[in-house]
């Protein structure tokens, strides 16, 4: 599937002069332009409050830009229909900083959620989910409800949920923030392997230990503007 002309491929995400403000406040992002190529791997970094989470929300389509153009998987998203929006979201996996696991569902049910909401029967994905849970080291914890999981276990459950549907784009907000450095490196390897299999990965972090471990593009946000370090 790899194109002979990678530069000609349609970007997974494309921002053109995007500006974003909340209400009448100052612009959180101004004139942000970048592209995320298919199968690319990049870090999104910058000091706290620089707009990393806002940028991720724009990509996730849970916020709309005040100005500029946002295209996801080649589709310009202003005025997108609810159905198309769902279609785009199904191609993305997201790991939230605060995990956002559903506390009344078991680890297994949480991880299976993206497949379940596609209307698939439980029998059709059971093996997949169990295999992934074992692979991220949660094989013994699949019955547990999230409040009983440790920070690291929640993180892995959240990552497993983001990966289960094999997304084309993975967004992770501080995915190594709550884990010890050893587990952090393991999770990073996991993202790299996923990337090798064809998923574009964006990791928002300000953990230089993680960023220095991988030679990847860095998107640096500062005072609402984006600088790209190749």
């Amino acid at each position, binding site marked *: 599937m790899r194109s002979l002309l990678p530069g000609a491929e349609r970007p997974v995400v494309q921002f053109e002069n995007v500006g974003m403000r909340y209400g009448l406040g100052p612009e959180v992002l101004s004139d942000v332009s970048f592209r995320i190529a298919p199968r690319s791997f990049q870090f999104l970094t910058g000091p706290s409050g620089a707009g990393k989470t806002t940028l991720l929300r724009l990509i*996730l389509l*849970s916020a709309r830009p005040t100005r500029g153009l946002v295209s996801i998987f080649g589709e310009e998203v202003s005025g997108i229909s*609810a*159905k198309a929006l*769902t279609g785009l*979201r*199904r191609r993305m996996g*997201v790991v939230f900083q605060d995990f*956002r*696991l*559903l506390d*009344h*569902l*078991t680890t*297994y*049910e949480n991880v*299976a*959620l*993206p497949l*379940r*909401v*596609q*209307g698939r029967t*439980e029998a059709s994905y*059971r*093996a*997949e989910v*169990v*295999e*992934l849970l*074992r*692979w991220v080291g949660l094989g013994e914890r*699949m*019955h547990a409800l999230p409040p009983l999981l440790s920070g690291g276990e929640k993180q892995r459950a959240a990552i497993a*949920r983001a990966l*289960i*549907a*094999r997304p084309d784009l993975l967004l992770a907000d501080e995915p190594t923030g709550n884990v010890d450095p050893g587990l952090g490196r*393991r999770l990073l*390897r*996991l993202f790299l*392997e*996923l990337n*090798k*299999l064809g998923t574009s990965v964006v990791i928002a972090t300000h953990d230089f230990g993680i960023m220095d471990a991988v030679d990847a593009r860095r998107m640096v946000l500062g005072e609402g503007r984006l600088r790209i370090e190749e």
Partner: protein
Amino acid sequence: MSTQAIPRARPEPAAGAPSPPVPAQLRRNAALVPTDTAAGRSLAAVIAILTFLAGLCAGAAEMVAANAAQWQGDVAQEVTIQIRPSPGRDVDADLARAAGIAKAEPGIAETRVFSKAEAERLLEPWLGSGLDLSDLPVPRLIALKLDRGRGSDLKRLRARLLEALPGVASLDDHALWLQRLSTAAGAFVGIGIGLVILVLVATGLAVTFATRGAMASNREVVEVLHFVGADDDYIAKAFQRRFFGLGLRGGAIGAGCAILAFVILGLLARAARSGPAGQEVEALFGAFQIGLRGYASVVLIGVIASLVTGVVSRITVRRFLA
């Protein structure tokens, strides 16, 4: 860790790799919206109470309708010929003549001529006993029982009586009285239906508020479901399923209690009417039982309450998401 370690999203069956054994008793398909919450239980209780009240209204209306219909049927089976005494006429002869005409009429099963003493006794409740009524022109009555099987032509009977005994005999088929009874029963049934509708509307409103509350407190769940790729329809269905479940539980409890109440009241009424006074009460007001149709309407109200709950919650969720 090698790339091979990453599980394939869709394992090819041809590979024949044994799928990992899945632990038994793994909870797999819990409801997406938390169900057993304090708010949920309160809503089920509200629906149960409203269904119970609606069930009582419907049962009472059904009971009135059934008793009124039975009573009307009984009364309509009887008509009365009234013979007014007038000076210079032999009342007994008039009476015999009218009875003869009635007997000759097809569709009359039975004629019973009230004797003078019987006619006077009918006035006792109003005039007291021990009076000499011989000077008063007390009208005399002939009670006719209609044959249920054969149609009877009361118009023709009335015409023939008028022809034979003009100004003396008149036929009373209780039409006016029946009409009043029917109007009263109809009004009662109408009030019952109105109350049932009001209660169902109240159920719908209670569910609207409860759904809005549930959506607000489950905002996190809704958001996560959106992010993992659920569309509005899927989320609305999840909420609808939850509320339909609550409605079904509330409706079943309410309808069950209403049926139980009617059974217990029926038994009590049966025990109470063993005496002569009880029989009189029953003759006047009819039996205290709502019959199969009554029970069915109570069950139907329970079902409708659950359906209303499901539909209203779905509409509310769709509006909330839009």
